[in-house]
C-alpha cells in the first residue's frame, strides 16, 4: 500500500533536512547558488498564487519586488530603521498597489493578454518614476551601508552569507506551506474554479471580483517580502535593474518551467533553471569560450525545448513518472 500523501511528506522532510544541513556540506559559492534557487522558488511560489491558482497572468511582478525593496531600503537608508519594521511598510505598499491595479483591471473587465500588458505597463511606469525620484537616488541607485559581514546582526538583517541562506530557506518553506494550505482552503477552491471557468464560477455564486483581488493581494504581499530580502542581500538598488521586465520574466520562468499551478513546480523550476544557468557558465569556462551572449543563447534553447515538449512543465511529467 502506497499512500501518495505520506510519500510526498517524507520526501519533503528529507529535502528540508538536507537543505538545513547544506551549509555543513558545501562552500560559500554553492551556498550563494542555493540562496538564489530558494529566492526564485519563493518568488515563483508568490507568482503562482496569482497565475497558477487564480489564473491571472501577471508579467509585471518586478513591480512588487522593486517597491518592496525600495520601501524597506529607504527606511534603512534614511532613518536607520531595520527591515523588521520595513517589511511591514513594504507589504502594505505592495498590497495597496496590487489592489489598485487589480481593482481597476477587474472593474473594467480587463483580462487575458490585456491584463498581462497592464501589469507590464504599471511596472514600467514605476521604473521610470523611480528613475526621476531623487529621494531614492534616481537612476544613480541607492546603496545600503554594508556592515561587518562576520557577525549576525539580526535586528538590522546584516550578516554573513549563512544568515541570508537560512532566512531564504525559512521564507521558501513558509511560502510552500502557505501555498499548500491555500490550495486546500476555500479560497484555493474558488480560485481554481475561477481559473478554469470564470463565468461558471460566477454563476455558482462566487464573487469572482473579490477572490481575484485576494489572490493579487497575497501574491503582492509575498513578493514584497522577497523585495526586502533583495535590498538587504544585494545592498544596492537601481530602478533600471530591479523593475526591468527581464526581472519579471525571471520570476515567471521557474513556475512555468516547473509546472504552473503546482506546489513543487516553482521549486523544481527554480532549481533547474539556476543550476542550468550556472552549469552553462561552468562548461563554457571549462571549454575556454568567452563570448558575450553565448550563455543566454544556450539557456534560451533549453527553455524553448522545455516549453515545446513539456507543455505542463517538468514537475507534472516527473510526478507521473515517479508515480507520486
Amino acid at each position: 500500500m502506497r499512500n501518495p500523501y505520506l510519500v510526498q511528506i517524507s520526501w519533503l522532510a528529507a529535502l528540508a533536512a538536507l537543505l538545513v544541513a547544506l551549509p555543513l556540506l558545501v562552500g560559500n559559492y554553492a551556498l550563494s547558488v542555493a540562496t538564489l534557487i530558494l529566492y526564485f522558488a519563493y518568488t515563483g511560489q508568490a507568482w503562482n498564487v496569482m497565475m497558477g491558482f487564480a489564473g491571472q497572468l501577471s508579467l509585471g511582478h518586478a513591480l512588487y519586488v522593486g517597491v518592496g525593496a525600495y520601501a524597506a531600503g529607504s527606511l534603512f537608508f534614511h532613518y536607520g530603521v531595520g527591515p523588521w519594521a520595513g517589511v511591514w511598510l513594504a507589504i502594505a505598499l505592495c498590497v495597496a498597489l496590487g489592489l489598485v491595479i487589480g481593482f481597476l483591471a477587474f472593474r473594467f473587465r480587463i483580462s487575458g493578454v490585456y491584463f498581462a500588458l497592464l501589469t507590464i505597463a504599471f511596472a514600467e511606469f514605476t521604473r521610470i518614476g523611480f528613475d526621476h525620484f531623487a529621494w531614492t537616488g534616481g537612476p544613480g541607485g541607492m546603496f545600503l551601508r554594508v556592515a561587518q559581514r562576520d557577525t549576525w546582526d539580526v535586528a538590522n538583517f546584516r550578516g554573513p552569507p549563512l544568515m541570508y541562506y537560512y532566512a531564504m530557506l525559512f521564507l521558501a518553506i513558509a511560502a510552500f506551506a502557505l501555498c499548500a494550505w491555500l490550495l486546500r482552503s476555500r479560497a484555493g477552491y474558488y480560485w481554481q474554479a475561477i481559473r478554469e471557468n470564470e463565468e461558471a464560477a460566477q454563476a455558482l455564486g462566487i464573487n469572482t471580483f473579490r477572490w481575484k483581488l485576494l489572490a493579487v493581494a497575497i501574491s503582492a504581499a509575498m513578493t514584497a517580502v522577497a523585495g526586502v530580502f533583495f535590498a538587504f542581500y544585494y545592498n544596492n538598488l537601481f530602478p533600471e535593474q530591479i523593475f526591468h521586465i527581464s526581472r519579471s520574466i525571471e520570476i515567471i520562468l521557474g513556475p512555468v518551467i516547473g509546472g504552473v499551478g503546482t506546489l513543487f513546480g516553482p521549486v523544481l523550476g527554480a532549481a533547474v533553471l539556476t543550476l542550468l544557468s550556472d552549469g552553462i557558465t561552468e562548461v563554457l569556462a571549462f571549454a575556454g569560450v568567452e563570448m558575450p551572449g553565448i550563455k543566454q543563447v544556450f539557456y534560451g534553447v533549453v527553455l524553448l525545448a522545455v516549453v515545446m515538449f513539456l507543455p505542463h512543465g517538468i514537475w507534472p511529467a516527473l510526478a507521473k513518472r515517479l508515480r507520486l
Partner: protein
Amino acid sequence: MPALDLVANVVVSGILTGLVYGLMALGLSVIFGVVRVVNFAHGEMMTIAMYAATALFIALKLDPFVAMLPIAAAFFVFGYALQTALINPFITRPEHSQFMLLVAVAIILVNAMLMIFGPDARNVQVDYQLESYELGPLLLDKGRLLAAAAAVIAAAGLFAFFRYTLTGKAIRACADNYLGARVVGLNVKHLYALTFGLGAVCVAIAGCAMVLLVDVTPPLGPAYTLLAFVIVIVGGLGSMGGALLGGVLIGVSEALAGLFIAPSAKSMFSFGLLILVLLLRPQGLLGRRA
C-alpha cells in the same frame, strides 16, 4: 517656454518618427489580429533588421532603402518558418505558454545579436542624412522624411493586400472566424504563417528605416517590444489604422515630453497613456469591441 517654431519642428519630427513606429506596431497588430498570439519577440526582430541594415551598409555600401528589399524577403521567410515550426503548435495553448515560447525566442535572438555584433552601438551614415528641406519655419530632415515615406508606402501596400487580394481576404476570414475558414476549405496554418511573414516584413522595413534615425544596440530589442505593445493597445489591437495612429501619437508625445520635461521621462508618458487607454477604452482608439 520654447519658441513656437521649435515646438512645431519637434511635433513634425515626432510625427515622422511615429510613422516608422506605427509600421513596426502594424506588424504586431496584424499578427495578433489574425493568429491571436502576442509576439513578445517583436522588438528583437526589429533590432535584427536594424543590424542587418548596418551590416549590409558596411559590407556592401548598400543604402538602407535598397537593403530593405533583401532584408524584407529574408524576414518573410523567417516569419513564415517561425510560425510553421514553433507557433502553429502553440495556437491552442494557454497564453502564458505562448508567452514563454516567444520569450525564449526573444532571448535567443537578442543574445545571438550580442554574440555576432557585440554590445557597441552601430549606425549607418549616408550623405543625405545631413540634408534637410526648409518649409517655412519647418526644417525637415531628408533621412527622417524618407523613413516616414517608406513606412507609409509599406503600410498602404499592406492595406491594399488585405482589402483587394483573394489571399488577403482569406486571411481576414481566418481572423473573423477560425472554424468557418476551415469549413470552407482554407488552409489556415498556411495563412497564419503567411500573416506572420507579412508582420515580419513590416518589422524589416521599419527596422531599415529606423537605422537612419537611431543607433542600434542589443538592449533596444526589449524596449521596442514594449513600445510596440503600447502603440497597438493605444491604437487598438488588431486594427491596422489604429497601429499607425498610435505610432504617430506615441511619436509626438515622446518628442514633446523630451522637449518639455526630460528625454529620459519620455516613455513614462507612453505607459501612462497605455494605462489610461486600457482602463477607459480597452479596445483602443480605433479598435472594435470584441
